Each structure stands twice: as C-alpha cells, then as structure tokens.
C-alpha cells in the first residue's frame, strides 16, 4: 500500500471506526461481533483496493457499503433456519443510501458506549470493550494496559459480545430515569482507562498510550452529550493531568511530584481547554464527582499564575469530593491537603481514621503515610512506610523517588 492511501485509510479508521461500528451494530440487531467482522472485512478490502482504484470521495460511505453487503450475505446464510429479517435488510439498505447521499450519517457511538457500560456486562470488561468498539484498539494493546494475559483478554471480549447478542442488550440510549446511573458507568469506564495509562509514566512512543486513548473516549462522550456536566468535568480532569505529562519526570529521568513540577513544562493549550470545559460544566449548576476532581486539578494549575498552591481551597474541595465519592483516594487527598493547609498532625489524624485492612496493598496510602510521618519527624516509621510504598510500586521512577526520600 502506498503512503497516501495508507495514511488516508489510517485516518479514516481513527476518525470513524466507532461511528461506523455503532451504525452497523445498531442496525444489525445488536450483533456487535458480526458488525465488527463485517467492518474489518471492509477495511481489508480498502487496503487492497484503494491503492489501485484511488481513495473514494467518501471513504466512510465506501466502507459502510462493503460492510453492509458482507453483513447482509451473512444474515441470508443464517436465514435457512430463521427467516431473514426483512426489517434488518431494509434498515441496512436505507442506511447505505443515507451514507452515500449525505455527508453525515447519525452518530451511534453513544449507543455503543451505553451497550459497553450496560449493568449486565461484567464491570471489569466494560472499559476494554469500549476501547475496542469505539476506538478500534486491539485486544493485545488492551491486555497490556490492564495487566491481563492477552489470550484471556481476547476471550473476555468475545464472551461479552456474545452476551450482548444472546441477552439482547438493547442498542439504545436509556430513558431519562435510567440515564444518570447508566451514564455514570460510561464515565467510570473511561476514567478507568485513563488511570490505567496514567500509572505508567514510561513514555514508549511506539506503544499505545492508554491515557491518550481515554481522552479520545472522553472527547467522544463530551461531544455526544455536551449538556452533561460530568462528561465535561471528566474530560477537563483528564486534560489537566495529561497536560503535566512532560513535567512529571526531570531531565535525569527522576520523578517530580506535582507541587514541585516546573509549571512552564505544562501543556498550556491543554490546561486552557480543561479550564474552559470546567467553566462550562460549572455553569450548568449540577456538580458531581468528576467536576470536583477537575476543580482540584484546576486549583493546582493556578500555581502557574500565582506561584503557590491554595491548600485550604484544595482541602475544602477534597472534603466536598468525599460527599460524592468516599473512595480511599479522596480521603488520602483530603488528609494530605489538610496537612499542608494546617499542620501535619491534623492530616495524620485524618489518615489514621481510614480502614487499615483495605489499605494493606494500597501504594498511594503508604506514600502519603510516609510523607506525613516524615513531616512529623517520626523518621524510623516514615522510612518503614517509604519502603512499603516502594515495594507496592510498579513505576521505576516513582520507586527511585521514594528511595531518595528515605533518611
């Protein structure tokens, strides 16, 4: 394949994979796996034909037409047992007409997001399923990011798609009364992908960057539902964190904690976009977990302008966050911010109230504990906690940083 055709195909796939798949799947009676097969066959046909015949004027419509034919053939074959559904046939044909004759066809990615985050789908597979169906990532990349054996990941994805078909999980956007709960599953799944990518700071340029892919998913969600403040809040949160990517490690490859990062290294365009999104979300007057987390990051981002972190503000935001999500991370953030805003002993008290049994293997807890103990001058205990945090750490730069903090 020559370079322009390869580039064009690649761009089309990146831009439209989820749109095409959502479109096909929702018109093929929820047969997600069948729609995927049909689409990958269309992509293969493009790889073979575009270099010879030239790139079509409407690449998406071309792909859709090929995939539609494949899907129709498939369904005709199955019609021996089961009368071929005329409704589906008709729907697919009118879909193709629409695609060929107009520049835009309805974006069904929101339905895809909801299907993938359906309560009937195992929680652990929701995010991988979104990454595969909406963004077109392959099972191997997803497996690495989620620390699952590749064969097992592929099997789980296949099983989830079989369930969508067998249990007839509807390809639709839920009713208003179910909306809030179901949409929060979508956002949680996107955030799970982001934290997966976030934890690994090693920048492998060839490897997939899961954090970046999660931002793409978040962008899809925020674009499709622009009046949902939490979707904007989540995107703002991810952009704020991602903007600091190159500041997290110094020239010598050492980890740099947030409040010591060189703010000039932050990606200002990304920070600005995050701030705009957060303002828009706040204007809607429906606060939520992701908006508050983004506001905390926004408070940290203010250091670029004012030169200092307003710790009382950060502590108050964490306190508010706990009322939305009593997660361990929120409590730990609250304790640390309180220590900065008042005295270390006050933060330590808050940390001591957390349930010990859930924290045994929680790396951020041991790191927070170590820092507070060090500030309290309890050196021996601090060193023990630093060591434990190191042992639970999977990032070599953070591990080296923790070692350097021991005295």
């Amino acid at each position, binding site marked *: 394949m020559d370079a322009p055709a390869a580039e064009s195909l690649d761009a089309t796939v990146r831009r439209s994979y989820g749109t095409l798949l959502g479109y096909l799947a929702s018109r093929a009676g929820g047969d997600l796996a069948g729609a995927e097969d049909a689409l990958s066959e269309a992509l293969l046909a493009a790889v073979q034909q575009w270099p010879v015949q030239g790139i079509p004027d409407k690449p998406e419509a071309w792909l859709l037409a090929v995939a539609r034919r494949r899907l129709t053939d498939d369904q005709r074959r199955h019609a021996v047992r089961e009368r071929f559904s005329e409704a589906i046939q008709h729907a697919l044909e009118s879909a193709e007409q629409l695609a060929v004759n107009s520049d835009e066809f309805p974006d069904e990615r929101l339905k895809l997001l909801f299907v993938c985050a359906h309560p009937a789908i195992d929680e652990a597979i929701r995010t991988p399923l979104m990454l595969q169906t909406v963004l077109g990532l392959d099972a191997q990349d997803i497996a690495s990011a989620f*620390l*699952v*054996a590749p064969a*097992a990941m592929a099997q789980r994805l296949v099983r989830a798609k079989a369930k969508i078909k067998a249990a007839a999980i509807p390809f639709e956007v839920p009713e208003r009364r179910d909306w809030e709960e179901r949409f929060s599953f979508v956002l949680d799944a996107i955030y799970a992908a982001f934290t997966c990518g976030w934890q690994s700071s*090693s920048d492998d340029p060839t490897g997939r960057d899961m954090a970046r892919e999660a931002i793409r998913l978040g962008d899809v969600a925020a674009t499709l539902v622009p009046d949902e403040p939490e979707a904007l809040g989540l995107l703002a949160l991810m952009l704020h964190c991602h903007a600091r990517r190159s500041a997290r490690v110094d020239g010598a490859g050492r980890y740099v904690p947030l409040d010591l990062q060189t703010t000039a290294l932050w990606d200002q365009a990304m920070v600005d976009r995050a701030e705009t999104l957060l303002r828009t979300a706040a204007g809607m007057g429906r606060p939520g977990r992701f908006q508050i987390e983004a506001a905390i990051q926004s408070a940290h981002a203010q250091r670029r302008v004012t030169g200092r972190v307003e710790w009382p503000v950060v502590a108050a935001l964490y306190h508010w966050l706990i009322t939305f999500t009593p997660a361990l991370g929120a409590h730990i953030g609250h304790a640390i911010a309180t220590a900065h805003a008042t005295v270390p002993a006050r933060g330590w008290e808050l940390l001591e109230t957390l349930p010990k049994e859930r924290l*045994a*293997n929680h790396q951020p807890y041991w790191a927070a504990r170590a820092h507070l103990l060090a500030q309290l001058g309890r050196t021996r205990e601090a060193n023990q906690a630093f*060591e*434990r*945090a*190191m*042992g*639970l*750490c*999977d*990032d*070599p730069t953070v*591990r*080296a940083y923790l*070692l350097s903090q*021991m005295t």
Partner: protein
Amino acid sequence: MEYMLLFTEPATELAKRNDPAEAPAYWGAWSAYCNALAESGIMVSGAGLQPPDTATTVRIRDGKRTLHDGPYAEAKEMLGGFFVINVPDLDAALEWAARSPSSSYGSTEVRPVLPPPAPPTP
C-alpha cells in the same frame, strides 16, 4: 491458586549488586518488594539467587555424568530469583509481577504451579 514469579535480570543489573554506587538502590528496591509481598500475606516461598557464574549444571548422557561450569543456558538475561505466591487468579499474580523491580529493566515470568501429585492409594 499458586503462581511462581521468575525474575529475569540482564547482566548489567546483576552487576549492580556489588557496585558500591549502585547497590543501595538495587537492594533497596528488591527488599521493599520482598517485604511488601511478605506483609501482604500471599507469599508461599522463594528466594533470590546467587549470580549465574556461581552455577554448575549437571547432565547425564549415555550413563556418563558431565558437569558444566555455569548456567544451563547462556543468555543476556538471567534468572535472579523466584517467589511462589498464593493469590486468587492470574490477574492478581500479574499485578504483583508488575511491581517487581525486574519488570522495569528485565522481565518477570508468571507461571501457575502444578498441584502436588495425589498421594498413592493404599
């Protein structure tokens, strides 16, 4: 379910064990990891190993016993140690493998342990 974690390290890392400048970081990372494993309560057994140049390999071929000075295979990465852990599933084992220092510069292999053979029936 028991899994063996096998820590494979390149020669450059193994050499850090005895380098006065590098040894504290090398051993610090490993002892932190070992202690975290021990305190999590999933550790079954295991140990670090002396470097491969201390190995002797035994083979018997055609009834003849030969000894070979060194590990069974010369490789760029060498077995530095192993642990057997008891965790609910492979994903949990992979999580612990990712925390091993060797995963960052060498590799960590995770293998399910065969259950012990059934006792002979009387």
